[in-house]
């Protein structure tokens, strides 16, 4: 067992009969995220027989393998050897991506409610929400959905008691101390405070996810008019590139 970064032992154990889980910490924090990122970079660079793909999360990485190609114990030994050189990523870089958001109105039906709960004006909620540089901890659940860390604690808001049956694509929401963007139209219980015209998932481009793990995101308030202009530009382009 080796030690890396913040001193958590790297734990590698089977996750069913065709994956192993690399555990890198217990809590959602930047240092653990740095180790998750380092493991993924390492997997990207090494070619380990039988490895099909890997799935990063907040504190762990699952490595999916083909049991007909490699034995689980051989894979775990191989991963241990590769991860022994895991660099400690204390200083994280990451691309800074601006995400334009039209807050409130028809695009942010819960902005008023969030402001009332937090004892703030709507303008203050918008200012606070668009101030931080958020970290994309992982992309998961549904295609292109970014889990963002770094929401100001003052903006924390519970999930809606009655989830909406359909939250439109691009909706920016708050749930507890998390904020995120709905990359597809799905049912959902987050408090919706705005919407972005940016297409977060497009299966016709590589990579298909607009945001990547490790990116830093800044929300930029825009007007409804700008929203519509940007929306048309983003979706026209997507329509041209789409195969039948």
């Amino acid at each position, binding site marked *: 067992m080796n030690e890396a970064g913040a001193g958590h032992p790297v734990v590698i154990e089977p996750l*069913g009969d065709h994956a192993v889980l690399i555990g890198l910490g217990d809590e959602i924090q930047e240092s653990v995220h740095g180790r998750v990122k380092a493991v993924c970079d390492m997997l990207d660079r090494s070619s380990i027989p039988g490895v099909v793909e890997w*799935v990063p999360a907040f504190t762990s990485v699952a490595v999916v393998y083909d049991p007909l190609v490699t034995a689980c114990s051989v894979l775990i030994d191989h991963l241990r050897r590769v991860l022994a050189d895991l660099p400690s990523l204390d200083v994280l870089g990451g691309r800074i991506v601006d995400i334009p958001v039209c807050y409130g109105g028809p695009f942010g039906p819960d902005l008023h409610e969030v402001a009332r709960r937090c004892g703030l004006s709507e303008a203050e909620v918008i200012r606070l929400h668009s101030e931080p540089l958020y970290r994309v901890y992982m992309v998961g659940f549904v295609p*292109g959905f970014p889990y963002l860390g770094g929401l100001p604690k003052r903006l924390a808001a519970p999930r809606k008691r009655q989830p909406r049956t359909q939250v439109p694509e691009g909706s920016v929401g708050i749930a507890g101390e998390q904020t995120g963007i709905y990359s597809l139209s799905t049912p959902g219980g987050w408090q919706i405070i705005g919407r972005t015209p940016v297409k977060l998932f497009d299966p016709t481009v590589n990579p298909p996810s607009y945001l990547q793990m490790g990116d830093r995101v800044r929300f930029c308030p825009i007007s409804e008019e700008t929203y519509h202009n940007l929306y048309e530009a983003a979706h026209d382009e997507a329509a041209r590139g789409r195969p039948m």
Partner: protein
Amino acid sequence: MYMEVLDGGFLTTVQDLGRMGWQRYGVAVSGVMDAQTATVANLLVGNDRNAAVLEATLRGPRLRFHDETLVAVCGVGIDATVDGMAVEGWRPCLVAAGRTLEVRSSARGCRVYIAVGGGVLADRVLGSQSTYLYGRFGGFHGRAVQKGDVLQLGAPTGETQERMRRLRRQEAFFAVEPRWAAGHSVRPRFAPEGSVRFLPGPDLSRLSPDAQETLFAATYRVSPSSNRMGLRLEGPVLQVRDVTEPVSKPVTRGTVQLLNDGQLVVLMADHQTTGGYPNLGQVFLVDLPQLAQAKPGDRLRFTAGSLAEAHRALRERTEGLRVLEVALRLMDAYGWRESRASV
């Protein structure tokens, strides 16, 4: 070469073995729910194992073949006809041009696979032709097939053509099948109250010893709200002892999650990539076809198994499919035994 959909059935989608390599972007693997049956169907018509097939759920489709086509219909309890004449399935079937295949719902199984010589040609997105219904991409324009759709077929392989030639020797008006079929050893074992094998997961120990006992003693009923994302099960309510909200972790096909209402869900082909619910364990990959064939109302139990057992069973199944593939090639080369037999 194409076929026309006269009726899409309950839920018929184009699937191959799945969209691997994109889960890090949140993209579900998708693909066939019962990889074993779909693979047999493809081998029978001389296709590559990853060729796209039609996966029919519960009530199957009605398909008219524009050209003479080699078809294999595989599933549990096949009820299929070509222009009213029953076909038995689990064997290649030469369907004459202009004829209609109808796959009705079976009293026993849930999913029927229809492989066509050359495979279905559909939208290839991120390396796979599988339909991902939730994201509305892949397969036939990201959706289930419906009345009026016209599906293109690929070019038949040499094996497909050889089998068509042999079947064509027999005089047939609608369709002709050989007397042999794929043997029972390569079909998924399926019993209405069967057990599936289960590998303990990271959160199993969060159940009390009593609750763990209940998990393995209980019989679960497949809920009607099951779908391609997961099989929801109805049974005794289980609760974890601690209430700490777990951090979302990766999940896999076969992961058994404990939902907040104390019920279980087994993740299947279209499952999400990460999950925050307690992960009690994983069903053996080799036993997932049994779950794919379970209909709402069917019952099942879990039995604990080991990783070594899971891998041994998977190797045995793979070996069985390989034997079938080789046997079919030998028959193409040296002639078909016309006695009723299985390969």
